[in-house]
């Protein structure tokens, strides 16, 4: 048995070292799962003779936690959402892109050049955008789905059949928009209002699930579910008869970006990748795969016709999208306590 052990450990060590030996031309990406088609990564691999590895995370906060716990220096690029880009910048986790390093920099749609979380795009390039509102099954018979009233003060038919995202940021943001109060408010009355609203609305909610939102709608377990727009589109393609909502009180916008990480082991390849993703054809491939929109000029002609016209990417006129905001420390603590009250 000891002999077996020794040989196994030796084999493992050999195996591990052989993995490290192929170090020429590598790129290490930290990414949301199932967001980018493998074919695209293979295309990049071939074009630039780079070996691509991709690790995945399931939430912005999980990514931040892993990076802070010790994964800095392992990855070249990451793909966080809007507010997380700002946070990462403040935490000093991002590297700056030099002027002129990205030859495709001009492809960025002008509207998305100066974003609140990275003015002038010093450390990031846009990736995909979408929204995280909610979808309602047509079978529930709701005539006007474009209101958050359905979530916070639901009609009988929806009570007990509502699924929310298991995410503090989105849920409290939606609630704040519904109440008409600012997202990082420190006004005590407003906060108490928010607290009471969400805690009492919970009685009508069946579950908190980000991952199985699409399946719940498909199966009919939930008649209304908070969901990312891309997932809603996929659900519709897979047969769910649903309507995606853009609440008139305000809807939640998200924009994912590719950021250049500090201490990137393969900085040159990282820049090449970011440039690659600014090619209209490539970024459109991701859009077609994940069913989101993108912010690169000229990508429209590569996008699926159905996608470009889909309700999820075409908010009704007059509706206003808001990014989830990252609050200052003291205020964030109030919101953390509200969330604990919701979940306790």
């Amino acid at each position, binding site marked *: 048995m000891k002999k077996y052990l020794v040989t196994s450990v030796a084999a493992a060590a050999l195996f591990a070292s052989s993995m490290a030996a192929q170090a020429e031309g590598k790129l290490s990406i930290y990414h949301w799962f199932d967001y980018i088609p493998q074919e695209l990564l293979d295309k990049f691999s071939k074009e630039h003779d780079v070996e691509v590895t991709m690790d995945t995370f399931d939430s912005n906060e999980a990514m931040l936690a892993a990076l802070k716990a010790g994964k800095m220096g392992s990855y070249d690029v990451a793909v966080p959402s809007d507010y997380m880009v700002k946070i990462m910048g403040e935490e000093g986790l991002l590297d700056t892109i030099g002027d002129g390093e990205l030859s495709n920099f001009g492809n960025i749609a002008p509207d998305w050049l100066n974003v609140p979380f990275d003015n002038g795009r010093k450390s990031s390039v846009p990736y995909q955008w979408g929204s995280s509102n909610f979808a309602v099954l047509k079978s529930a018979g709701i005539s006007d789905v474009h209101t958050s009233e359905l979530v916070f003060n639901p009609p009988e038919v929806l009570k007990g059949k509502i699924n929310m995202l298991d995410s503090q940021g989105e849920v409290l943001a939606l609630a704040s928009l519904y109440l008409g109060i600012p997202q990082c408010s420190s006004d005590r009355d407003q906060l108490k209002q928010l607290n009471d609203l969400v805690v009492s609305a919970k009685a009508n909610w069946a579950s908190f699930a980000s991952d199985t939102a699409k399946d719940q709608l498909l199966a009919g*377990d939930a008649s209304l579910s908070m969901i990312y727009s891309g997932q809603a589109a996929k659900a519709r393609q897979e047969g769910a008869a649903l309507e995606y909502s853009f609440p008139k009180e305000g809807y939640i916008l998200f924009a994912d970006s590719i950021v250049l990480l500090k201490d990137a082991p393969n900085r040159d390849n990282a820049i090449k990748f970011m440039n690659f993703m600014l090619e209209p054809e490539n970024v459109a491939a991701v859009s077609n795969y994940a069913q989101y929109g993108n912010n690169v000029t000229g990508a429209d002609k590569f996008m699926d016709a159905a996608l470009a016209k889909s309700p999820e990417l075409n908010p009704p006129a007059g509706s206003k999208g808001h990014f989830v905001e990252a609050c200052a420390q003291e205020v964030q603590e109030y919101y953390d306590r509200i969330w604990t009250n919701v979940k306790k």
Partner: protein
Amino acid sequence: MAGQLSSNNGNASNIYQGNGLTLMLPSWLVICVLLVVPVGIMLVYSFLTKEFRGGVIWEFSLAAYDQFFFYRGLFGDEAPTIEWTYIAIFWRSIWQAGLATILCLIIGFPTAWFIATRPPSSRAFWLFLITIPYWVNLLIRTISMKFLIRDEGPINEFLIWLGPISEPIHMINTNFAVQLGLFYSYLPFMVLPIYASVERYDFGLSEAAADLYASRWVTLRKIILPVVKPGVIAGCILVFVPSLGAFLAPDLLGGAKNFMIGSLIEEQFKGNAGNWPFGAAAAMILLTMVLIVLIIYARAQNRERT
């Protein structure tokens, strides 16, 4: 000879006296370096100041423990009263875990017994039969379980078709679902240790005729149970303790509407809260509780045997 040997069951043995520490050394080394040190780091973290959005600032602070035990209002500036929130969460997890353990015991003990009384050549086969499902990832099995017990799932449809009910039984997102999930996650951890214990029991002995008017059940209770006790206790520990920190079953099957210890601590590290010292503190409190119980048990064992 057989009789003499049997009477030694469960009693302390010291035939390898003097080798105790040497035998423990490899395990001590591995666990001390790879776990005690990291846990020590966590212990230290629980006494530090939280860094905004995760991480720690190296400044001593009791804020984490204070947050656990004292409630100071929504804005953190009222007079402190006892914080029942986290204690309630702990309590909820404890009774969930306890219930799951009992469930596992009720189903697991007979199963282990059954396997142990099969012909010797087929026992390994039965054991594998029990453990093979666990080669499939727990997440997938839990989601499949969820699929089964949904309102429109196969079980409800089957029961409606059979006749006894006309409306689906609402099982998903309930405590029952969580119990089922926990039971499902940890069953082999109950079966295997009990099996290992029971298998040793010399059945031939008790089957011998004696002036026994008692039924098999009484014999089971009074004679066999004390002998297989180590296995039962091992099984209970292996189910109860991990259940305390579990969050897969509560989240996926219970709807994640209430924090369990596992999800509470997760939220501190992977969620918005980013409050590592608090997560560490909660983990330390959990650890202390379980340690105390285990040490009491260990001490009682030692006293019993000498």
